[in-house]
Structure formats: C-alpha cells, structure tokens
C-alpha cells in the first residue's frame, strides 16, 4: 500500500481558492449563499471556503454540517423518522429560499451526494443546490455532476483516494493509494 501525493498542501489550498472564486462567479455574488459540508472532511472544506469568502467579501456565510449516514441507500432506514435521521446534523439556519452549496471531499459513485440531496430536501426548500468537491475521481453510478471541482483525478476502482485535512489529520494532502 503506497500512497502517492496527488495534491499537496499548496495545490489543495489553490483548489479551494479557485472554487471560492467560481462560487462567487456563478452565483453573481454571495447573497443567500449557505454552505453545507458533508461529514467528515467536507465540513472542514466548507469552513475553509467560508473563511475565504469572509476574507474576500467580508461577509459571514453560514456553514452547516450534514451527517448522511442514515440516508445512505445501502443502509436500512425506512423505519427511521426524519428526526432520527437528522439527529447528527448541525444546521442551525433555515435553507428556505437559499442557494445551497454542498461541499464534500471526494465525488465517486454519487451515492453520498444523492443521500445529501435527500437530507437537504427534508430540511426545506432551497432556491438551488450546487455541489463543490475537492476531488472528482469518476465512476459515477448516478446522474450526478459537481458544479465546482478542485481536481479531476481519473482513478481505477481498485485504487483509493485519501483526503487529509490538517484540522484532523495533521497535514493537507490528497493521496492516491494503490
């Protein structure tokens, strides 16, 4: 198992910076913008994007935390109530009429994002939902596409993509593990 660094700290920072500019560009500003990070690393990435927007526009963009464990389609969850499903989330703002940016580290099959979309829909009716990911590694199983991509990393299904964030991993990097 050898990890090869695909994005180092600098490249990762640059990718987040570019995504931030693109978010402003596409949304024609930051009005009604909210960020929702998908647990675990998506949350840190969402916070970093929010920090950048703060620096750039001097506005505080709300950041929510989404735990989609109970929404995965590979988990038996029909019997759960919405309250139970939502219990691990931290979204203390209304998404009604907002432009939601979902943030995750890796986009792969699309199942996580699908689950996140369901969860967001359960929360309310946003004006729009966009998806930002640090890495898009291909192999989609659902018709889902990211609006903001840090880096496309074509990979085989045997390989693993590991994202490290310094908040919990002691370094910033994206590694391809063969």
């Amino acid at each position, binding site marked *: 198992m050898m990890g090869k660094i695909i994005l180092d700290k600098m*490249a990762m*920072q*640059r990718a987040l910076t570019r995504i931030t*500019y693109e978010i402003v560009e596409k949304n024609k500003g930051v009005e009604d913008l909210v960020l929702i990070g998908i647990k675990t690393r998506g949350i840190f990435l969402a916070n970093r994007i929010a920090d*950048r927007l703060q*620096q*750039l526009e001097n506005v505080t963009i709300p950041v929510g935390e989404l735990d989609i464990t109970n929404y995965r389609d590979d988990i038996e969850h029909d019997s759960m109530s919405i309250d139970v499903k939502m219990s691990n989330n931290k979204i203390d703002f209304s998404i009604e009429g907002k432009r939601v940016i979902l943030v995750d580290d890796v986009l792969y099959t699309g199942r996580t994002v699908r689950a996140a979309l369901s969860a967001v829909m359960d929360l309310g009716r946003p004006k729009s939902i966009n998806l930002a990911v640090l890495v898009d590694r291909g192999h989609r199983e659902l018709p889902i596409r990211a609006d903001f991509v840090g880096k*496309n990393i074509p990979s085989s299904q045997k390989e693993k993509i590991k994202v490290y964030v310094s908040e919990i991993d002691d370094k910033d990097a994206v590694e391809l593990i063969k």
Partner: protein
Amino acid sequence: MTQRYLILADGSAYPGKAFGSLATTTGELVANSTMNGYQEIISNQIYHNQIIVFTQSSIGNTGLDQNAYESVLPSAKGVIVREYENLATDHFKRISLDRYLKQHRIPGIYDVDTREIRHRLQKYGNMMASIVDVADDHAFDQLHATVLTNQQVAQVATPKPYPNPDEGDNVVVVDFGLKSGILRELSRRNCNVTVVPWNSTSEMILDLDPDGIVLSTGPGAPSNLPESVLKMITEIQSQAPLFAIGLGHELFALANQAKVSKLRVEHHGANHPIREIITNEIFFSGQEQGYAVDPKSIDHAKLFITHVDLVNGTVQGLRHRDFPAFSVQFSPDGAPGPKDSVDLFDDFMEIMERRRDENGSRY
C-alpha cells in the same frame, strides 16, 4: 578604462568607468534591488527607455546563461553598478556581460556609489538621466531636451503572430513586450502557444479558438496604448479564461474602468511581501513596477482585489467577478525573483481545464 558620466536631471554628475557599449543614451533612472538575475533584468523589455541601477554591489559574476534571456533584443538604455565582473565562467555561459552589452548597444558604468543614487531616487522620486562622455552644460541641455518615445510597446512587441507549438492547451499570448519567462512557464505546462501582436483585435484572437488568453508584460504607461486595446480586452474577457501580467494587468484594470497612476518611485525588486487576500498569506515575487492600479478606483461590482503589496499598499492582483479572468502586477514566472507564486500558471491551467470540462459536460 574609459571614464564616463552618469548625469541626472537634478544636475548631479557621477564619474565612473565605462563597460559595454560606448553609446550616449538617455532614459529614466530606476533602481532594481533584486539580488540575483542581472541577465533576466537587463534583457526584460520592461526596461525600454530606462537606465537600470543595480543595488546589488556586483554583477556579471556568472556570465550569461543561454536559458535565462527574457528577450532576444534587449532594449534597456543603460546599466549602472558598483562593480562589474566580465566573466564567462564555464561551458554553459560562454558570453560575458561586457560582450552582451556591446552587442546590443547598451552602455554601462561601474565604480559609482549606487547606494547614494538609490537614496537619491528614494528621496526625490523618478528622474531622467544620461550616460555621456563629458558632463558639461551641453550634456545637461541634451538631457533636459530629450523626450522619450511613448510608442514603447510598438517598438518591442512582435509585429506578426508566431506559434510556439506543443500538444497541450491552446493559449494565445498578446505581446506587449513579452518577457520569455511567461512563455517558459506555458511551455513547461505543454501549452500550444500562439503569440500575437499587441494591436490584435478580439476577432483575430478568438478566431484562434483559445482555451485561454495571456496579456503579457511590457514597458511604459498603459495610457500610451490606444482605446482599441481596452476594447479588445473587454471583448475577450468574457469569452475565454484570461491571465494578465504586469502591463497586461494594468490594461485589464483600465478595461474594467479602474484607474492607473505612476508611482513616485518605481519599485523594482523582490523584497516586498505580497499578501493574497483570500488566504491572508504572504509571499515574494519579482516586481518591476512603474505604475499602479488605484485601489479606490476599483468598481467592486466588477473586480476583486486579490493581492496587495504590504509595503506600499499597491494593488498587486485583480480578478473579475463574473468571468474567469485574473491579473497580477508582479512576475510569477520568477525570472528573476522568487518562484513563490509560479503556481498562478497552474491556476490558469486548471481554470482552462474546468472550462473545457464544463463545455464537454463530462460525467
């Protein structure tokens, strides 16, 4: 050793020893405090109309490197240094500084108190100067009477388009007096480059079907260029990713209704910290700057300020709010100067890549 003089518009005269060409020239005197890369500095077209004072005390130590020219035909008006060494030290560096300056008719003077000159420029601001054989009244009269051309870009930029083929992204570089470092960085990223003249129209540029467009560095005031250049920029910036550097950055700002003014003291060096606003990080880069975008003139509905110089407060980078178009005042190619921000070229590549992905709608 022939004695010659550097004379300044304020009446001062500095006797020194001649090297390089023995021509008499007049230009604007600017001090450059970069410690490495005299070859890159002298060959940068940005010094058209200018006499360069090196604050580093000796140049010429390493001879000239075949891979480090910033232009084929340098256009600096003179070189002033405390000490110069006429070496062509090893197999790779066969040409000495003296020979190079003679070839290109650039006069040099050494053995003058460059630190005193630096202090003088800091105190009194930009100044005209001449390199002459005799520092008499006639020489000063000539100096005061000289009017430098404002057609600098036309004199140094390519009059015809030319390709620099490769297999990667299709990049059009608009040449305002291009430094080779830009082409070097694009080549390193396998870009298929076409360099086009400064007065190309947006149609000509867009007809080349670019993945991205670079507005190059160049000499002189951006206001010397006609309105048509600004029109070209407004037309292309919405059509393809745009990266503007140096003079290109100043023009990009003007095209988006910002104002540009001349600095009291030009700044040429690599010692000022540049802050990237979005990350709050500081880095260093070669800066060769005579003009600056006025931050107050920027329409924030159109442009972000992305970078600022922490010493003189000047705008060092801009980005359009609606298009993937960005610009920097400094030289991220690091020729010469730190390579701290060379990844701006990677940014440009990624922006082009994203653009293509979107157009190709890849799932």
